[in-house]
């Protein structure tokens, strides 16, 4: 592989700065001891982190987002695994159409989905309920989980199942002892990315959430609409570091670059 020249490396450095700048600023800002938004140049203070603990709204929103994310990701994966098995191991009419159908939420603007869900839930009379939130999130994150599980299924050697059969395994045993264990990294990676997508989701949720059922990003959005102060910065910092932790976990189980870019290598 050719090396990159100094010009290329400079461009790259600027790019990295560009990507990191907003996040770095948020984190830095959250340590300010002052009341206003100012980059702390002298002392660092944790006061705005302690302030989170006094803000019941943010704590509730945090809790709801995590709880929602866990349930939604689990449901999404429970639905994605059989669907992925069907799509990867059988040839049937309508298969390609089904794949496109399952991946369609990816190309539908979240604004449109938000509008559609709001209308649907209002007619059904369940606006603001946890079920409504859950349903909308499961639908939106499903393609992410499906993609990852599907990728890990199609990457394995088809002869493995035949080998197990030839050694005397029943269909169920083949699934339990060969297919399932090999699927685990893909399923785990799929779960994590689904969780992250649910946790981060704002555009659609903004339409569907009500004051009593606000997820963290929506709460933050409304807060920012009013004013921007260090509190929302410190909440953001907690989110950023939580995400880093998850990313580390994913890297251990599945491989972070594989999850972000796809199994190309």
């Amino acid at each position, binding site marked *: 592989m050719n090396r990159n020249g100094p010009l290329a490396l400079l461009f790259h450095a600027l790019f990295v700065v560009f990507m990191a700048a907003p996040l770095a600023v948020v984190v830095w800002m959250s340590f300010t001891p002052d009341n206003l938004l100012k980059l702390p140049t002298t002392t660092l203070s944790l006061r705005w982190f302690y302030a989170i603990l006094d803000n019941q709204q943010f704590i509730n929103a945090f809790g709801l987002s995590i709880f929602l994310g866990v349930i939604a990701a689990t449901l999404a994966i429970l639905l994605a695994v059989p669907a992925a098995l069907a799509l990867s191991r059988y040839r049937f009419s309508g298969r390609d159409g089904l794949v496109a159908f399952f991946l369609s939420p990816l190309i539908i603007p979240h604004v449109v989905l938000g509008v559609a869900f709001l209308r649907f839930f209002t007619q059904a009379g369940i606006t603001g309920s946890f079920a409504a939130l859950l349903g909308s999130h499961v639908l939106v994150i499903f393609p992410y989980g499906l993609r990852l599980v599907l990728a890990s299924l199609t990457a394995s*050697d088809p*002869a*493995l199942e*035949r*080998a*197990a*059969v*030839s*050694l*005397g*395994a*029943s269909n169920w*045993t083949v699934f339990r*002892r*060969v297919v399932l*264990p*090999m699927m685990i990294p893909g399923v785990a990676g799929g779960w994590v990315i689904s969780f992250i997508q649910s946790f981060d989701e704002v555009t659609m949720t903004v339409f569907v959430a009500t004051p009593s059922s606000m997820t963290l990003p929506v709460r933050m959005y409304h807060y920012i609409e009013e004013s921007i102060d260090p509190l929302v910065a410190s909440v953001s910092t907690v989110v950023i570091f939580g995400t880093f932790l998850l990313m580390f976990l994913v890297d251990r189980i599945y491989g972070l670059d594989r999850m972000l870019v796809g199994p190309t290598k």
Partner: protein
Amino acid sequence: MSKIVIESLVKRFGTFTALNGIDLSITQGEFIGLLGPSGCGKTTTLNIIAGFEEATSGRVVLDGRDLAGVPANKREMGVVFQSYALFPHMTIAENVAFGLEMRKMPRPEREKRARNALDLVRLEHLADRYPRQLSGGQQQRVAVARALAIEPSMLLLDEPLSNLDAKLREEMQVELRAIQRRVGTTTVMVTHDQAEALATCDRIAVMDAGRIVQLADPLTLYDSPNTQFAASFVGKSSQLFSDIVSVEGGTATLSLRGSDKPLSVAAAPWFTKGAEVVLALRPEKISLTASPSEGMLRGKLISRVFQGSSWLFVVDTPAGTILVCELHRGAPAFAEGQPVGVSWNAADAALLPVGARHD
């Protein structure tokens, strides 16, 4: 009594006929090779024996029992796949013991049997490693051990050595044969490598386009191929065209193209006056002389190829291009471009019908 009999096996995938009537009878302990180019149906045959695919018609009878309706996981056959298909999330020992686990063998006994199987392939010391930690050759041997651990009624090998490099492949051919002799399991091996088939098999079924072209032991196959296809697929072959001048009783007179010397050969039943006959000759059965008039055919040496232990000469003659192989005993006597005479023993030529691909 045959171990396994395959009767009139036909397999169609939609409009494509993969197998067009396969008949094969294998005795206990035999090592049979299914040899042919890609698409000839050899792997399909193996898959049907294993139970991975169902035949369109025909039957497979094992130990007198028709295998129709018997699912693949109940056929008691050990299969070795081209990609080895070792379970990546299990250790080598667990891989080899898997079949025994499926038979509900208690742990101590199956661990012992697994170790014996690994011993057979001399990999006992790697029992606790994972497949990804082993080389290709080692993985291949584990795959064999795994198939043999269940003491199967038959061993099915699907191009087991094709992913190994040349040197390793030659070593494994010998070892595979030795293991099979020791264990005595009836074996069917699919391969596209004719040298491999000649080296390891008791009998070889040469296949082409869904049919068995010739079924014979390696020696017979090499010395007496029955068709142009068999002659050219197995070993190197020179094919000389001639016409039948006359047939009288048990003798026929052939006229080689470009030669004024008629040949007298034993007449085969299908000989008719005026028909074309191909003489198939192995390179080592042909000799060259420096004076063209002394040979049965005149030709010109186009190129000579040094192969280490032998020399290969390519000679152009009016009856066809000839390959001649001579042991290397110093610099060859013939130069490129030199006119030469070509000779052979009449008995060494296989007489084949032109263009026929099946019996």
